[in-house]
């Protein structure tokens, strides 16, 4: 006789139900715990920014670059971490990123996050950038793609 046929169907059904219930319970428990931790982290990180909607500008003889973001936090007296929707805008181009370290004294901006440069018939995607010499030199870092139309 086949070994599987010796099992009582009712017992097998009840055992399966219990096993599945235990698995579901553990999955739910793990998920709830993880969510609680995430909520705590969010509430910790959700502190108020030092500056809301900060605005700066980088001026040179040939161009003016305005710098805007949703939030700004002072790291030192001159260094500000610009966060969320950071935009560098001049007559010729715009650069979009999410986290940019900006020195308001030296007017050097630096980002290690994905950045997008957009100009007339030109776009650059990179893994960060540095703006130096009052915006004269823009150094796009890491794997970079330049499209000329």
């Amino acid at each position: 006789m086949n070994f599987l046929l010796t099992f009582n169907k009712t017992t097998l059904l009840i055992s399966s139900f219990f096993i599945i219930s235990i698995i579901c319970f553990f999955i739910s428990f793990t998920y709830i715990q993880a969510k609680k931790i995430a909520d705590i982290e969010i509430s910790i990180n959700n502190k108020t920014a030092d500056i809301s909607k900060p605005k700066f500008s980088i001026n040179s003889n040939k161009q003016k670059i305005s710098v805007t973001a949703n939030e700004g936090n002072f790291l030192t007296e001159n260094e500000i971490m610009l966060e969320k929707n950071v935009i560098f805008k001049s007559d010729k181009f715009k650069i979009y990123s999410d986290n940019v370290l900006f020195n308001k004294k030296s007017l050097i901006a630096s980002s290690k996050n994905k950045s997008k440069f957009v100009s007339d018939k030109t776009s650059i995607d990179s893994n960060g950038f540095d703006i130096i010499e009052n915006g004269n030199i823009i150094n796009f870092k890491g794997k970079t793609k330049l499209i000329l139309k």
Partner: protein
Amino acid sequence: MIKFFILLIILLFNYKFAISRNAGETEITTEDGIEVFQEDKYYLLKKNVEILSDEFNLTGQLVKIFFEKDLYDVKELIANDSVNFLSEEYNIRGKGEELRFNIKDQKIIVNGVNSELFLEKTKMLSDGEISVDNIKGGFFIQGSNSKLLSDNIYISGSKINGEFEIIDGKRNIANLVVEDDKKLNIKTDGIIMYAKKAIYDKKNSIIELFENVQIERGSEIITGDYGILNTKNKSYKVSSKNSNKVKAIITNTNE
């Protein structure tokens, strides 16, 4: 099910084309970033640079791209270190240590050891410099190991200066001036020529040879100060300022 897998395979094979650049666009990728110099008006592209455009493809390790007023208005590029260039549009391919390409004027210069430039079936080689003006049709090869190879001609000399003419959409050598401080070498149709200077005139179908001239055909060797070869009937004449200086050696190979 089979149809689904066939469709999946087709999609996988065309994936690269689906995400590639659009017609008219130039796509440039680098491993180590791009610097934009706005006042000096150039891009500096670093490490494993690849340029794909409708006119040409180029790879190199360090590339400078000069633009005019606007960032997209590219006029010239200078590529360094293991440069490979291919233009199906202009029927040119080349490689070398440094390549300069003026996009507006269609001038190409390849520098460095083992430089190569192919124009259709014409092959230019040099350890010095190869330059081609694709609009005017001029070319110049200079430096050690400079050579020009085509269907039925081999030329070596330290300076090779020439012009192309377009016949039926294909480039043909029209004029040529070859110089070498020691001895240049031209091989064509079983005739081998040596001299310090040679001038090829396609219109009159002649090759003139100057100084330390030597013409070899089969077992016949003739030397002198000046030589002239008719490329149509393959006849040649060698002369010398000193009438005693012309020397002919005819070896009987049947002996």
